């Protein structure tokens, strides 16, 4: 495999030499900064404006963090225990009828209708068997008929929620450590730190928005957060990879800032297109998938946007920033060397 690819590269060089038509344009191995700038119609210097990007991030992060501290997340039954009934009625029903049916048997619950009011989600505390039976009877008599095979019920005790939360924190930490190690080995430690900060940034944005809007979170939300973790790092590594590649070609007088700016722009097309395709997939799940995957898709969509933003405007810019801090006093030495 390796031998074959080497051969190919050699062959290419030959091919290029063999084509005099190409000689009019020097076969440069790499596009220079000016070319990259010209390439993109919308070009603007990203690295120079990095404080602006950090500020935009903070503008989204801070209200979210305040909300998280003040009101926390709207935890669903998976976390705090309770019951959830998902019913597909034979005909459209009204919120009022369901609420009245519940009240008639002394049960209080949140009701949420969807899909032309044929689907209802009812959230209650964990009901005893008799309460449950009387609720179903009341619903069928007062709200609308439905087949018992069109009933979904989730009841979760409080102990499970605690484990779920702990499991999520453990797996996030494990993922962060693995990523930190891998990027430190393949790139550099400051790259790894910047990447992990950007990841935390993405997660906090999702948590913050979910807290601000008080969207209910359940087990799939955790899966979404962790996937965003994996997805966003993917995005970041693609840019890092280009920075690593361009850094090797850097000449002494080249500025690191310009090189990073160039790398970010070179990968811009890919970053945006990839995010668009994943976003398309998620939007389809959000619109067409069932109720239970909606929250997952929503969290992921926010995550994909935040992840793309953070890969371009946070992770890569942090490298520049951290590098400046560390070389602040060492800069003279570096220049001498």
């Amino acid at each position, binding site marked *: 495999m390796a031998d074959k690819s080497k051969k190919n590269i050699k062959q290419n060089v030959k091919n290029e030499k063999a084509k005099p038509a190409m000689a009019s344009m020097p076969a440069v191995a790499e596009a220079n900064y000016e070319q990259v700038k010209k390439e993109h119609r919308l070009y603007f210097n990203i690295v120079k404006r990095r404080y602006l990007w950090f500020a935009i991030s903070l503008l989204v992060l801070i209200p979210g963090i305040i909300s998280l501290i003040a009101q926390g997340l709207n935890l669903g039954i998976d976390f705090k225990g309770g019951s959830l009934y998902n019913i597909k009625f034979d005909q459209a029903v009204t919120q009022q009828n369901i609420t009245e049916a519940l009240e008639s048997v002394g049960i209080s619950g949140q009701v949420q209708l969807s899909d032309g009011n044929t689907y209802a989600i009812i959230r209650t505390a964990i009901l005893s068997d008799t309460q449950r039976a009387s609720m179903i009877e009341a619903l069928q008599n007062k709200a609308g008929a439905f087949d018992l095979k069109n009933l979904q019920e989730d009841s979760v005790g409080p102990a499970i929620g605690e484990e779920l939360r702990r499991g999520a924190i453990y797996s996030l930490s*494990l993922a962060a450590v693995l990523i930190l190690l891998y990027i430190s080995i393949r790139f550099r430690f400051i790259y790894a730190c910047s990447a992990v900060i950007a990841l935390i940034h993405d997660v906090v944005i999702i948590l913050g928005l979910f807290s601000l809007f008080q969207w209910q979170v359940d087990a799939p939300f955790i899966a979404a957060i*962790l996937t965003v973790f994996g997805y966003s790092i993917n995005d970041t590594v693609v840019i890092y990879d280009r920075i690593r590649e361009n850094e090797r070609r850097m000449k002494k007088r080249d500025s690191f800032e310009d090189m990073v700016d160039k790398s970010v722009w070179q990968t811009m097309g890919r970053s945006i*297109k990839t995010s668009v*395709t994943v976003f398309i997939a*998620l939007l389809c799940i959000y619109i067409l998938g*069932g109720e*239970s*995957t909606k929250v997952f898709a929503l969290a992921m969509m926010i995550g994909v946007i935040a992840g793309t933003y953070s890969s371009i405007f946070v992770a890569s810019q942090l490298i520049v920033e951290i590098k400046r801090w560390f070389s602040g006093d060492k800069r003279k030495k570096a220049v001498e060397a």
Partner: protein
Amino acid sequence: MRAKNITKLVVAVIVVAAAVFLSIAPLTDPNNGIPLGLDLKGGVHLVLQAEPGKDGKAVTRDDMDKARAIIEQRVNGLGVSEPYIQVDYNRNRVIVELAGVDDPEKAVETLKTTAKLTFRNDQGEILMDGSELKDAKAAVDTSRGSAEYVVHISLTTEGAKKFADITTDYLGKNIGIYLDEEMIQNPKVNEPITNGEGQITGYSSLEEAARYAVMLRSGALPVSMSVAEKRQVGALLGEDSLNRSLNACMYAILLIFLFMLIFYRLPGIVAVFSLICFSLIVLWVFYLIPVVLTLPGIAGFVLAVGMAVDLNIIVYERIKEEIKLGKSIRAAVDAGFSRAFITVFDSNLTTIFAALALFLLGSSTIKGFALTLIIGILASFITGITITRSVLRWIVGINPRLSTTLFGVKEVR
């Protein structure tokens, strides 16, 4: 060279088309195809938590084995095909999954009530309560010449007196041993048991004896079971979810195909081709492992498709760049792949790390999602470096002087 590449291409397209055609039936077979999770075909997922009884003693491993035996016994009574019962000894839980039960309510009802062991006579009158049974152990008895598999039972002092009376009264008759309302054994009393130590004989193996011993011990189960988690999906609703998510899946894939065709033209077609191969590989892996397909699993698959496209995008963007730098299309394709390889390798591996963390530490539904994601990433990597690469090279091999507009590059400066 040219004819050879055309042949290769045509053969590849025919093979994949045939593979798709032939795969539909086995993969979607409702009985032997890719197994569907409870959320898609309806069923009950129940987590029963053992709690220490009144005496406040901690729950032991033996208690959990007893609990499992009781539950197994009851599940068998429900007549469910392939029930899944698992004991979590660390958390003192029994996890039960029953697919396609007609009446999930009743199933839950039967499973969570506490077991009751009784000794009854032929008429079904209760003679003695199982709580008088102190212990039951399987053993091999050689005292009667040949080796016999037996269950040793020992009774409490109170029970010993009762049992002495019963066995005297029913000498030569059968005493039924019932777990709940079901008779598990019907041994004949051969001699009165007066010292509180008895033997039940007639087992064909030590395992069988042990199984019955556990069931007998369960009569003295000192723990009570409560429902910690119950997830129950009606069969119709499950089918509804399956159709909806397949629908979502189809639209997502079609839109992604369209996107690739618009932005990348010729390589876009190649991407669509390799995505079909990718889907086929992933689905066959699901089939062979087998991976139980759940709602989060389908979401994971759609996401994996999105990420598989990413590999194509990285490569094609690189090829575009190389073309813009003035390389020939053939050189650009080769350079695009070899340079994008490291990028894709590093970026996919980091994503796998995150998915791995999910798989190792997540709850059961999250595990399914993580597994589909890991399989998806691996499959996309493999199809990317083999199929996409080869097909693109064959196409370029057919006509190395293709117009660069076919690659989405407007002009070579």
